[in-house]
């Protein structure tokens, strides 16, 4: 027997088919308004439309029910009790943090944390190698560096005349040579010595003494860092001052035209003849 009227299910089905062929499902639009509806913040027109949709859509009605439930449940998650030892642990940790109101202490603490965080990074060796390469390039690769010619000339000298390398250790450094690159050039042409007054301090002696002071510089640098990390700023400052002395000494030994005469150290015996300008004269 055929029906001549449609029941509610038929109408719902009809509506769904019409929507499918026209605007698409209204559920996404309803979903956007469910949260404000649960809060009672929806404008009256929208409120009526969403409520009408909900009377025909079980799925959206369930979502609204869950949204309403969450509105009550979520604020209860704001607090969670930690274990009983938590407060004691926090007090112990913050006691180690010195007064936050002494700004310099806070700054040092931050710098220390930053240094530790930096050291803990996995890319540190790579970055160290990169910085090292840049330093080497600045020292020997740039056009303005006084050391720009040294590596190439030293390599050439060693290749062409290995005996001259041994001899170079005792070649006197002329007074006018304040630049290591010029010294290297002088080493390359020992047959044409400069005519200026020679200095008895040899290039080898200079490097020897500068090396000692460089080691001292590094040692003081490490101790300064250690003392500063321990909070002994006075001792750290002393080591910093000693580092300055070492750096100054290295500068004078290597770069000054007239380096200070220090008591000569016993040199290892060498078979190469000592060539001085006096002898040549």
């Amino acid at each position, binding site marked *: 027997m055929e029906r001549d009227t449609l029941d509610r299910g038929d109408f719902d089905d009809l509506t769904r088919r019409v929507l499918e062929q026209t605007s698409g499902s209204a559920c996404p639009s309803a*979903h*956007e*308004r*469910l*949260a*404000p509806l*649960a809060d009672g913040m929806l404008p009256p027109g929208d409120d009526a439309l969403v409520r009408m949709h909900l009377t025909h859509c079980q799925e959206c009605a*369930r*979502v*609204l*029910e*869950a*949204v*309403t*439930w*969450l*509105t*009550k*449940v*979520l*604020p*209860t*998650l*704001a*607090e*969670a*009790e*930690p*274990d009983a030892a*938590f*407060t004691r*642990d*926090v*007090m112990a*940790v*913050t*006691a180690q*943090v010195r*007064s*936050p*109101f002494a700004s310099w202490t*806070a700054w040092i*603490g931050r710098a220390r944390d930053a240094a530790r965080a930096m050291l803990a990074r996995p890319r540190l060796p790579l970055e160290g190698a990169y910085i090292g390469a840049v330093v080497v390039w600045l020292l020997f690769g740039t056009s303005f560096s006084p050391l720009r010619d040294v590596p190439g000339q030293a390599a050439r000298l060693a290749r062409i005349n290995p005996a001259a390398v041994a001899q170079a250790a005792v070649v006197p450094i002329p007074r006018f040579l304040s630049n290591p690159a010029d010294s290297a050039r002088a080493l390359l042409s020992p047959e044409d010595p400069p005519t200026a007054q020679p200095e008895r301090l040899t290039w080898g002696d200079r490097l020897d003494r500068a090396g000692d002071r460089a080691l001292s510089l590094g040692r003081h640098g490490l101790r300064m860092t250690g003392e500063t990390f321990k909070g002994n700023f006075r001792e750290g400052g002393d080591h910093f001052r000693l580092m300055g002395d070492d750096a100054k000494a290295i500068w004078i030994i290597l770069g000054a035209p007239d380096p200070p005469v220090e008591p000569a150290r016993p040199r290892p015996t060498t078979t190469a003849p000592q060539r001085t300008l006096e002898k040549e004269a």
Partner: protein
Amino acid sequence: METAELLQRCRSGDSLAWEALVRRYQARVYGLALSYVRNPEEARDVAQEIFVRIYRKLSSFNDQENFLPWLLRVGRNACIDHLRRMKARGSNVNSPIEEDMEWPAPGQSPEAEASSGECRQLVYAALQRLSETNREMIILKEIQGLKLEEIASLLALPLGTVKSRSNRARTELARAVLALDPAAGTTYGA
């Protein structure tokens, strides 16, 4: 004692006031860390870190400001930093919550506590299904109760964007809850 007075005493170096402040806000801070980190052990460490940061920054706190939003801002930044560190180390920051994990809840009757524990577990599991943006919106707005203006300022977003995201996030969460438990809302005594 009012929070403002506690803060004043903390600034002058009163450790008793600092202890009182920690006790007053520790459940809140731990709850925040738990929402972000989702692992009770890690959340404890992060909560401790949050208090250290607060202690260091107390002198920069403006008295005209509301303390709780400031605390939540500091806490949120600490949680984000922790998650970034974990990500950089290759840890799975989205590790699933253990089924039998006991969620710490404020003191209740055993029945209510059991129900509350299940309910928390369901909500946290549903939260994991959300995008990071929606999850953070739920944590800040619905769980921690920050105002829309405060969230907009914290996340540097327009107010309208925060509002629409907040509404969308709630509906998404409701759908995620229903996907996990179709009877949610009726089972836990809505």
